[in-house]
Each structure stands twice: as structure tokens, then as C-alpha cells.
């Protein structure tokens, strides 16, 4: 059986497991800058 200390650690690990890191968390944000900004219809892809 787990010792009390390990049981507590496990509870924290279990909670953290609900919020696993995603790959984007470790990547630079890629900012695309329009060279010639122009208002495009909202139904066009925006990103």
C-alpha cells in the first residue's frame, strides 16, 4: 500500500492529470502579419 506521503502526491498528480500540457504550451506563438491588411468577410478563414 502507498504511504500517506505518496497518497497525497498521487492526489496532486491526479488533479494535474486533468490539465495535461499541450504541445502549443512549449512552442513560440506564430504571428502572421498581413503585408497589406484588408477587411475580409467574416465567413472567410480569419486565422
Amino acid at each position, binding site marked *: 500500500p502507498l504511504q500517506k506521503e505518496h497518497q497525497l502526491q498521487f492526489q496532486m498528480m491526479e488533479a494535474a492529470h486533468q490539465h*495535461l*500540457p499541450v*504541445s502549443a504550451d*512549449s*512552442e*513560440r506563438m*506564430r*504571428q*502572421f*502579419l*498581413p*503585408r*497589406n*491588411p*484588408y477587411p*475580409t*468577410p467574416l*465567413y*472567410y*478563414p*480569419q*486565422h
Partner: protein
Amino acid sequence: MVNDQFGMVGLLTFIRVAETDPNLVSLALGFDLTALGLNLNATDSLYPSFGGPWGEGPVRAEDVEFPVPQEYNISDQLRYGHEFVSSVREKLAPLKMNRYKEELLFYMFYTYTGDVLQILAAGELFNRDWRYHKEEKIWITRAPGLSTVEKGGSFERGMYYFFDPISFRKIPKEFILEYDKLEERPTVPNNF
């Protein structure tokens, strides 16, 4: 024979359990490590494109940093003003949308979001009988050689090509097309 977990009977126990509850013996019998999204037969190193402990595969190509000459970083140059970009632009051939293949037009439409190039590409696609479906948010054209199966006042039904931006291919599909869902000719600015 040894009658506890440390002999052959102990080994037999987890072999038997593996047939009914493989998760219980995952440590003892292990995983198929070739199914963890890594190309273990690669001759090149894996780490430069490693997607991390929970990645399903390698990182996307655009996330792999590589040192390039400063002049290539056009986005950085733009931040500091347009002088450099303007000087480069003057040396480039003018855009001729009607000369570009469909692939390039779709690339421009999906990549240059919020930019005049997106509108120009949309305009040229319209000229080539592609129509943008405002609800499906996808480009459609009639499949050549296949006539419409059904036609009403406000709609038609038949085979069409949809352009899928994920696979980057035209995919044929039967579809009911409502005319009011299609975008009219895009307004292309005159000075470009």
C-alpha cells in the same frame, strides 16, 4: 517448485492474466514501443523533431526552429517599418493572378488571412467558376461532365467538387446547393 511470486509460477500468473486483463501486466509485459509515434528505424536523430512525452508524432515542420539569415525574417522586418520590405517589393515581379494554378490560389486564400491577397485569390477563383459557400465555409465548383440531377428556383442538386484545405485536394460529393448561401463576386480593390 518455488511457490511464491519469485519463480516460474509467478511468471505464469502474469502470462495468464495478460489474456484477460492486459492492463494489469503492462509493466511486466511492456508496450509495443514501435507504436509510440517514433520512427525508431530512422538513421537521423529523433530529438530535433521530438513532439514531447505526450506528442502523438513529430512536431509540425513550422515549429522546428532553424537559424536563418536575418533578411529572411520578413515579419521581424515589418515591425521596424516598411523600408526593407518596400525595397524588396520593388524588385519583385507584379502579381498576375490569372496565371497562377488553382493550388496556388487556394494556398493564398487559406494562408494570407486578413490580407488583400486573400481577396485577390477569391476573386480569381470566382473567375474560374469556384464559389464560396458562406455557411459550409468551403469552395465548391461543378464537377465537369456531370449534369445537375435536380434543379429548383433557389437550389440545385448534383455532384460537385469541394476543395478540402486539410488534404489540399478536390473531393467529389453529392450536394444540395442553395444559391443564396453562395458568395457573390468578391469585391476586389482596384489599386492592386
